[in-house]
């Protein structure tokens, strides 16, 4: 029972991070119908930006409160990562928008390789690390016996995810900006005829996706304390799986998908085998695509005649 509870905590924490990244995938796919394969690397980049700013604040400015420094780094990372993703869209995707369907996809893969190599060259190949931002834990259960521990960082990660999901869901469902986004999603040409600035709306979508990736990147740092230039790939692909599982295009779906993938991965690695935990995640992708192509919360696409 304790193990089950412990793994539940671990799975929800891991799943929250996947969910935040998955929102970026799902929003971009929803609006331009493209899988942004560079999104995982944007996540990794944001983690590096957060780390650099955190180190700069604590070492150079000598700020003593790690949590406050972390929040500053998080805010700065959200802004800078958004700028990056805005530029990526401007440089690599927008010129290809009228082109054949595969062109932006290939461009995204190229961007993904560029980003990870860029970080490798600029920051070096080794893992960069910080520690002690938020290291405490609540412990339940008997002393010396088998207890359950709930790290403070897990609580922060889970609630930040839920709150951000609520905020972004509100933006998409209830604000004029969200309406414009949904309009572009349904019919871009019609939306522009009705006076919606399609380019700007798409840019804002990329900015929002990047801001969430930056939150995920900084929370990843909070959880694991280190980041490496290659760390974007696997979480990126798993988040993509989460977006598909939840129903691509749906925000709550992305987070639910993320949590499910996190839980499955964690329980699989405890009860079955740690060797094949990635296989578990990707088998789910295959099974979902075959039996539930529109995902858990996705609406089946209806072709209107």
């Amino acid at each position, binding site marked *: 029972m304790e*193990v089950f509870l*412990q793994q539940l905590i671990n799975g929800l924490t891991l799943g929250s991070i996947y969910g935040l990244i998955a929102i970026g995938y799902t929003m971009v796919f929803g609006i331009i119908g493209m899988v942004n394969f560079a999104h995982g690397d944007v996540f990794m980049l944001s983690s590096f930006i957060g780390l650099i700013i955190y180190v700069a604040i604590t070492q150079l400015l000598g700020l003593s409160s790690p949590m406050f420094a972390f929040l500053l780094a998080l805010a700065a990372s959200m802004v800078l990562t958004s700028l990056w993703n805005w530029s990526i869209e401007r440089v690599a995707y927008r010129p290809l928008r009228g082109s054949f369907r595969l062109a932006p996809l290939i461009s995204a893969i190229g961007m993904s390789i560029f980003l990870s190599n860029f970080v490798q060259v600029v920051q070096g190949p080794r*893992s960069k690390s910080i*520690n*002690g931002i938020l290291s405490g834990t609540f412990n339940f259960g008997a002393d010396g016996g088998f207890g359950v*521990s709930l790290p403070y960082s897990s609580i922060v990660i889970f609630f930040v995810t839920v709150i951000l999901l609520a905020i972004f869901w509100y933006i998409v469902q209830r604000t004029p900006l969200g309406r414009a986004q949904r309009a572009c999603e349904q019919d871009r040409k019609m939306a522009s005829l009705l006076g919606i600035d399609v380019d700007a709306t798409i840019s804002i979508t990329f900015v929002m996706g990047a801001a969430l990736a930056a939150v995920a990147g900084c929370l990843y740092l909070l959880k694991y304390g*280190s980041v*490496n230039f290659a760390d974007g790939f696997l979480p990126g692909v798993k988040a993509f799986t989460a977006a598909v599982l939840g129903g691509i295009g749906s925000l709550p779906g992305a987070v639910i998908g993320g949590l499910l993938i996190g839980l499955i991965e964690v329980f699989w*690695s405890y009860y079955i085998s740690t060797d094949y935990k990635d296989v578990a995640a990707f088998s789910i992708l295959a099974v979902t695509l075959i039996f539930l192509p529109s995902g858990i919360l996705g609406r089946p696409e209806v072709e209107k005649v």
Partner: protein
Amino acid sequence: MTLSKLSLILIASSFLTSAYAADPIKVGLSGPFTGGSSSMGVSMRDGVKLAVTEINKAGGVLGREIQLVERDDEAKNEVGVQVAQELISKEGVVATLGYVNTGVALGSQRFYQEAEIPVINNVATGSVVTKQFLGGDFKNNYVFRNSANDTIQSAMIASEAVTKQGFKKPAILADSTNYGKLGTTDLTAALTKLNITPVATEKFNIGDTDMTAQVLRAKEAGADVILTYALGPELAQVANAMAKLGWKVPVIGSWALSMASFIDTAGPNGDGAMMPETFIQVPSTPKRKAFIEAYQSTYKIDRMPSPVSAAQGYDSVYLLAAAIKQAGSTDGPKIREALENLNDKIEGVVTTYDHPFSAADHEAISANIPVFGVVKGGRVVPMHPEDLEGANALRVKPKG
């Protein structure tokens, strides 16, 4: 271009070449300079370069200077094979130093064996590394090593945990590379000799960041000590996972626990980890003092990322240089023969090498040389300071 200008260039270029009358001796260097094992690879390279610079300054070997041809094998077996083929056929190296990763060494060495070019492993520790071409159909073995192999390390780990510290329920945590797998085998064998069976044996992949499942299983099995065979970044995540689960048991493992990538990422969670070390960054002999100072001033760094790799890298160059000098030739079989019968005593950083190799024994480091180090405040310090004091400081391989 006028004729006078052309002749000027010709004269100038002839001066340039006359500075190095003879061709340089090309020595290959293969190691992971990127990826998770790069702190070992880069330290090893820096140690090697330091020694090469010193030797060249003193006039080189056989009146020729040593030229390093370095290649990044990325800790990947297939890249290592490519590097080996390139170094042998395109660059024509006379010998190769390096190999941090046991798997890469095992995959690449056969090309050197076939080409009769000696390899000195200065970091890789897998027990089979030097035995791949020993005996059987092989007349001569071209693979040498000057690092403490896993048989030595695992025996030290097991006896420290069981005999000295009295733990009875060890759990083994290892990565799923050749290094971790072979290490697990050695460690299990060493424990069996002490009549102990590990309560759990857990694996993880390179690049994994979440070790909670493995640590949880070890915890549930009632382990009272964690024995590790893995590399820095993953080990750090093991230590972090233990902290997150609020579980405190000692960690004893292979020397990779001294990697900067472990110490930095694990931070305070890594304190107290124990590992066998051939070299700890402590100026316990004049040679070690000079080496540490030269390293620090050359690379503008206070703490070496991996002191063991740096020291062994440095020593491997001197072993090779001595062999080439004794052989009086850069011919592969002659260098091998000289390595097996080195007459000069070589004062290295790790130890003083007095006939370190023989035809049957290609291991320069014996079980009495490594001492236990412990992570303390972001550095590795000797666990028992008396191990590196007075007569104990210099430990030499027994003759025999």
